[in-house]
């Protein structure tokens, strides 16, 4: 018997008012505009500000932000928290996003004063433990990726992509190879790939994919000329399929003088089991907020370290961490560096979490990939009768289903996505990759139990069965979320991007 109840059918189940109603904005909670919380005394002989800041224009009145009393603010945040799906509530099967469970201990560790309360400009002697952690993390990530060195600076995946492409440009420029201004990017690639190329000042050449989702090798060959700076690839690709011709493509690229870039968003399929460095990739970025389980935070902060092969090490962002015997220091001596890509040394708080995560698995880290692929393949097999699959080839840690050509004509990916929310399940990634119509991309990750996967499969089956009976009902979803279907057209047509005091 199915364990899945069918929600949203009877109005008596409409949730309680404070959950269903509108939550006031922080400006509407009645805080004090004139005074902040009780303050400490200056403790020095105060002088008039006009005397201390001669000629400086001061605000006539405080910025109109109310100081909300703590008990009121606490409830506001508590009610808002209830309006969020999250990993402690249910599965988050977002393809390409690797929403795995974030270990509780990692959060505690990152908050240790020895990590959180240190300043980037303290003397090296005062921050040895932090530098050692960064140095060790770089070694671990090099080992896992097969790269020579890794910069921990980039703040997210896209930032790592742009950093990597800047290094590729610097590499070609240093060889006097200045006509290489193009990047080959598969049509199924994530949007950040072409956007990062454009930000770096490179021209994007789109490469076709085969019916099975893999890169068309002949199309790659056609565009590998003297203008090609690099090929950007995701492997397994955004359909979850391993690029089986990767060694051939790497050979072709290098033969033509181009470099091979690895978008590491999908490393969770391979971590510990195969290395981008061994596949011939010259530059690799990782998303620590995916494979290495730093929490996604509602949209960051993440961390996007970027690794390079030997030939590109001179171009790494500055500074790097160096070791002299048992002392660690920041090394600013990189005359060919592309420069600084952000302030200071990286999202250190995320580096602490990722380091802890890797040390917990250590030499058993391949269990992550094995279980991620096992979970995804199992879920896919359970969904086989519910949705058509976008490609027939074997996928790895994620797979793309579609509602197109399925049992219910007119059922859209969006409708399935919204109806899933009623069951306390977050929707898979919808409409990505853009090469697949009505795409639903599932990535369960290794931290879901079989029971959780079974439930998700049953919910999906229930939704399709419901759509067969009553498509309109599915199209009206969601019913049980704190708000019903949100009007995104209105949001875009009349943008209201901030609260304003009534005139």
């Amino acid at each position, binding site marked *: 018997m199915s364990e899945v109840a069918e929600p949203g059918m009877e109005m008596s189940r409409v949730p309680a008012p404070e959950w269903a109603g509108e939550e006031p904005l922080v400006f509407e909670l009645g805080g004090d505009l004139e005074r902040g919380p009780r303050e400490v005394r200056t403790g020095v002989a105060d002088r008039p500000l006009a005397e201390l800041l001669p000629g400086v224009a001061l605000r006539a009145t405080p910025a109109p932000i109310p100081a909300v009393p703590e008990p009121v603010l606490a409830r506001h945040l508590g009610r808002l928290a209830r309006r969020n799906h999250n*990993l402690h509530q249910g599965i988050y099967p977002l393809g390409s996003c690797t929403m795995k469970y974030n270990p509780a201990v990692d959060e505690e560790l990152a908050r240790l004063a020895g990590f959180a309360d240190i300043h980037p400009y303290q003397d090296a002697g005062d921050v040895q433990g932090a530098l050692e952690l960064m140095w060790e993390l770089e070694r671990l990530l090099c080992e896992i990726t097969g790269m020579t060195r890794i910069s921990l600076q980039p703040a997210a995946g896209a930032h790592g992509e742009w950093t990597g492409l800047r290094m590729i440009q610097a590499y070609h420029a240093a060889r006097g190879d200045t006509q290489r201004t193009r990047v080959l990017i598969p049509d199924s690639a994530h949007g950040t790939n072409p956007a990062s190329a454009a930000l770096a000042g490179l021209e994007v050449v789109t490469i076709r994919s085969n019916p099975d989702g893999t890169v068309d090798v002949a199309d790659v060959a056609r565009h590998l000329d003297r203008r090609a700076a690099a090929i950007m690839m995701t492997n397994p690709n955004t359909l979850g399929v391993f690029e089986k011709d990767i060694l051939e493509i790497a050979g072709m690229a290098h033969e033509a003088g181009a470099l091979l870039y690895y978008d590491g968003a999908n490393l969770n399929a391979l971590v510990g089991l195969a290395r981008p460095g061994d596949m011939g990739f010259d530059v690799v970025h990782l998303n620590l907020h995916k494979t290495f389980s730093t929490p996604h935070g509602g949209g960051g902060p993440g961390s996007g370290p970027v690794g390079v092969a030997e030939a590109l090490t001179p171009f790494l962002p500055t500074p790097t961490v160096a070791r002299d015997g048992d002392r660690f220091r920041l090394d600013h001596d990189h005359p060919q560096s592309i420069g600084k890509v952000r302030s200071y040394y990286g999202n250190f708080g995320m580096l602490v979490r990722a380091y802890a995560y890797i040390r917990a698995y250590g030499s058993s880290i391949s269990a992550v990939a094995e279980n991620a692929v096992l979970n995804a393949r199992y879920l896919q097999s359970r969904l086989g009768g519910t949705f058509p699959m976008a490609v027939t080839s074997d996928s790895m840690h994620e797979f793309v289903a579609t509602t197109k050509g399925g049992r219910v004509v007119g059922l859209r990916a969006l409708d399935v996505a919204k109806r899933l929310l009623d069951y306390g399940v977050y929707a898979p990634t919808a409409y990505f990759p853009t090469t697949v119509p009505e795409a639903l991309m599932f990535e369960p990750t290794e931290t879901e139990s079989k029971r959780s996967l079974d439930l998700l499969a049953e919910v999906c089956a229930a939704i399709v069965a419901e759509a067969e009976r009553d498509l309109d009902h599915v199209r009206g979803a969601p019913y049980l979320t704190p708000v019903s279907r949100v*009007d995104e057209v209105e949001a875009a047509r009349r943008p209201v991007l901030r609260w304003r005091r009534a005139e």
Partner: protein
Amino acid sequence: MAYLPNGADERRQMLEAIGAASVEELFATVPERLRHPQLTLPEPLAEQDLVTELERLAGRTHPLGSLDSFLGAGVYRRYVPAIVRAAIARPEFYTAYTPYQAEASQGTLQTIFEFQSMICELTGMDVANASLYDGATAAAEGVMMAVAQTGRRRVVAAADLHPETLAVIRTYGRGRGVEVATTDDVSTSIGAGDACAVVALPGFLGTVEELAPVAQAARAVGAISICSADPIACALVAPPGDLGFDITVGDGQPLGVPPSFGGPHVGFMAVRQELMRRMPGRLVGLTHDRHGRRAYALTLQAREQHIRRERATSNICTNHALTALAATVYMARMGGAGMRRVAEISVQRAHALAGRLSALDGFELAEPARPYLWEFALLVPGDADDFARAMRRQGIVAGLPLGRFDPDRREQLLVCCTETSTPASLDRYVEAASRFAGPVEVNR
């Protein structure tokens, strides 16, 4: 195994359902010679051993709280109300994804809308985005916006921009052939061929200049004016929006985010209405649900990489939502008045310390004619690195020696006070420094 819920039985059942004989079979598409590299990785650690190992590393640093610290220079130790940490430690917030499915993400969406609104109030601008990585990349994104808006490729930047910010602007600019010139007088240097003027509030040395003329001069030549502002400064002095700037960027770290060795912090950007559609990153808008209730959603996404690909306004995808939440809670708890009070305390303490130090023989302000907020460049007797080292031996981080940024400032230290610099720590600073006081024979 660490964080894996399925046991051997479940895995066997799952393999059966798939129709595979082994997990290895699931990796058949990976060429044999790539599989199972020999990795040198340490033994797995039990949680308890993991804590021991990380506590060992954390024990090999000296946190600011264990010292009398007068380090600032862009990263500030400000008091963080406990409710800020309590909020960002909630799994409902920290384990959520980017709020693409609006109906199941109203919590995150509303807090971002509140962040955008409060950043606008603080900076005096029309529209703010959901966050960027940090202050330095926010400034670089602002410059890229100006380049796109004006079609020009030269940037005039104040020489007293934070060195990290200037360095990052240069790195972003280089790929796109954008030239960056620095000057002490931006308003007279900006010309008709320039994309933008970039100035800081306050400057790297803590000083405040008259900035309204920069915004006017930029406007007069059709360039964009950008101000990189400290948010706490914006609570005290006339904010960039009131001074006529087109774009305000900055780092929200002082708003409830710990120093964390330089990251993660949170970049913010706020602009005039006319520049809204050129903004990088996410924007949350107010709209309604089917029942007409207020609801929030990501909006104007046609600017972004997932829709526009190589023609997007930026490549940013993941931003710094959780640290923006910390800033949101901080601003809401402190209010505009509370933040202004924090700024005032910092100003009073910095000026008191500066007064007492410059009364010592051999110590004086390096920029005596320029008004400053809570940081000041201090001339010390002899080499500032030596002085800082000697002070450190007494448990005092006396400031940032400036020689590494400017060889002409080798005898200067950038000293910072905040509301966490207690009066007793000021006394200890003066007491320790007085031992270095005496007739100056160093050649200045």
